[in-house]
């Protein structure tokens, strides 16, 4: 049982920089929790505070129900995997992995057994005699993970561990880390700025911006029910389209209205938007929920917009259309059989059931 609880945690650096503001969340036992956000959002600082590498300015940190604010990193029973691996360059892979165990005075046989076992899991058993500089990036990564595994800590902390790997290896290590999580039944806190890593690996995602937690939820939650415009725009590639528009009352109900844009709001959202009638709002819709009308087979009504294609980017499995719509701008991820090309007019269907509306002032999600 290793639960990590952050209660109203603040980090203020001596120079006055307020890196983390009032962060509160709980990482449950055996949970894979990802701290996600753009660079400088305070996610790494939060992780380092959990590790004890950074002092907590305000608030309480509990591991396993015990307050550890003033406990040394080495006594917190955590393992930290660094972005640049931080292997000891003068030691062999074996010694790198055994270092922590030797310091904790484990018997030799047990050290040997643990190191070899971890090496087997990570497929680095043949590298144990090498020095870090003789290894590839991916291999170093595995050693860094191995150094954490052998300790069998309460909590694993990962600081952007995949960001120094090339794209292909990153995808591979991603699924391996996920497998490892299941195999070890470990509690993991994982920092990344890559939303794909977060979506694919996390049980729980904590999204941060400017030191403030924006949303805590499952990958499903943050994708389908973003709490504000930032989260909506941060999760998903290409990002969600945001159009400035008004909610207006028209025939048969409420409509989203802007220049070259008039689409009907589904009945189920009307109640929530009552108070926004005739007011400016931000209308959000994901590129994957926009379709080319000429090749769309499903049924639809009152949800077509017409715009001019600026750029068409064929990606193979789909085509991205960058469309201008009355001075605003929209990206649609459409079927690759589309005939739309640069400079042509295109009619697009917006899947209105998936729409989002954000308050223009607070940027909080209304729908």
């Amino acid at each position, binding site marked *: 049982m290793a639960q990590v609880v952050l209660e109203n945690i603040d980090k203020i650096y001596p120079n006055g920089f307020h890196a983390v503001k009032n962060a509160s969340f709980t990482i449950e036992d055996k949970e894979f929790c990802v701290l996600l956000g753009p660079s400088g959002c305070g996610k790494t600082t939060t992780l380092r505070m959990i*590790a*004890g*590498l950074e002092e907590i300015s305000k608030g309480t940190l509990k591991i396993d129900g015990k307050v550890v604010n003033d406990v*040394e*990193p*080495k006594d917190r029973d*955590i*393992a*930290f995997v*660094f*972005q*640049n691996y*931080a*292997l*000891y*360059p*003068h030691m062999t892979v074996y010694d790198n992995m055994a*270092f*922590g165990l030797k*310091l*904790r005075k484990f018997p030799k046989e047990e050290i040997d057994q643990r190191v070899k076992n971890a090496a087997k899991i990570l497929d680095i058993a043949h590298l144990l005699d090498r020095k870090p500089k003789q290894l590839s990036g991916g291999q170093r990564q595995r050693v860094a993970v191995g*150094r954490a595994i052998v*300790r069998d800590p309460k909590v694993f902390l990962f600081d952007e561990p995949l960001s120094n790997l090339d794209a292909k290896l990153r995808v591979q290590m991603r699924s391996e880390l996920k497998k490892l999580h299941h195999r070890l039944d470990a509690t993991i806190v994982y920092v990344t700025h890559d939303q794909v890593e977060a979506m694919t690996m996390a049980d729980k995602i904590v999204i941060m911006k400017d030191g403030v937690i924006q949303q805590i939820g499952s990958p499903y939650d943050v994708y389908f029910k973003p709490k504000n415009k930032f989260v909506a725009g941060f999760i998903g590639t290409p990002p969600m389209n945001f159009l400035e528009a008004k909610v207006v009352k028209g025939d048969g109900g409420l409509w989203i209205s802007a220049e070259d844009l008039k689409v009907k709001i589904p009945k189920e959202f009307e109640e929530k938007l009552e108070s926004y009638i005739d007011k400016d709002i931000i209308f959000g819709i994901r590129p994957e929920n926009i379709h080319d009308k000429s090749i769309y087979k499903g049924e639809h009504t009152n949800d077509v917009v017409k715009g001019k294609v600026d750029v068409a980017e064929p990606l193979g499995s789909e085509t991205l259309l960058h469309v201008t719509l009355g001075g605003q701008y929209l990206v649609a991820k459409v079927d690759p059989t589309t005939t739309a090309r640069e400079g042509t007019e295109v009619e697009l269907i917006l899947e209105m059931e998936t729409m989002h509306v954000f308050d223009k002032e607070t940027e909080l999600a209304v729908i």
Partner: protein
Amino acid sequence: MSVQKNKSRMGFIIILPSLILIGIFVYYFIFWTIRTSFSNWNSFSSLLRGVYKYVGFRNYERIFMDPRFQTDLWNTLFFTLFFILGSVGLGLFLANLIDKGIKGSRFFQNLFLFPMAISFVVTGTVWSWIFAPGNFPNDPQGLNLLFKKLGLEKLQWMWYTSSESIGHFNLALIAVIIAAVWQMSGYIMAMYLAGLKAIPEEILEAARVDGANERYIFWKIKMPLLKPITLSAMIVLGHVSLKIFDLIYAMTGSGPNNVTDVPAIYMFELTFRSNKYAMGSAISVIMLLMVAVIIIPYLYSSLRRGVSS
């Protein structure tokens, strides 16, 4: 292909002047010194006659039989040993203090490095004043005077004029070693400081998370990673100490009974005071070989490292 050729020809032309100058003033003169060391040019008149007579290793035999030169070798050994230990130890200690980021560390860094900018002759002169014993206990000078004022007469000593020794270690060398360490330890500190700054913070943090305390980190992480610096420092100090002349010449000269004499001083006196050119050359060649013994393996290993990376 021809672009490549032109490039390498251009490169050759550019280094040619320094190649010629080094060829004449370094390698030709080394050759000339070696040639002289095998000659009978051991008086001014024999030199004037200008007739080269090969005498084999006779000059070397005479040098190695000479008790003064034997003393010089012992002095060099002990001077080198304690000079390196002192400079490396003090340099490492200061570098760690400054790396910890104590208040005003930038100021201290420059302060410690400053003696490096002073000529050995100046250092020697200043420390000769400090260590001048005077007529103690009643009429002392320098440090001995300070000891008297502090009521520490027990610490008054003959310093570089002392004729005491432990085995072959002439204690008069202590004063010279202190002066030399004072001059060079700041430089060694700068080398170690650069090395310490180059160790990624993450490695130290990883060790902390792994359970290491600061002392363990110092001995098991930092020191092994500083090994190339320690080696370089020892090479730099080693070749300074084997060739040391100006500091000692300005400070004490040979001292009474050659207690602070070193090969370079003997070489200088034989060559330019006694006109025994051949014997002076022989000492020069011996010194060259001693320095080569430590420099060549270092150059070899660092060149090889350069090629492999």
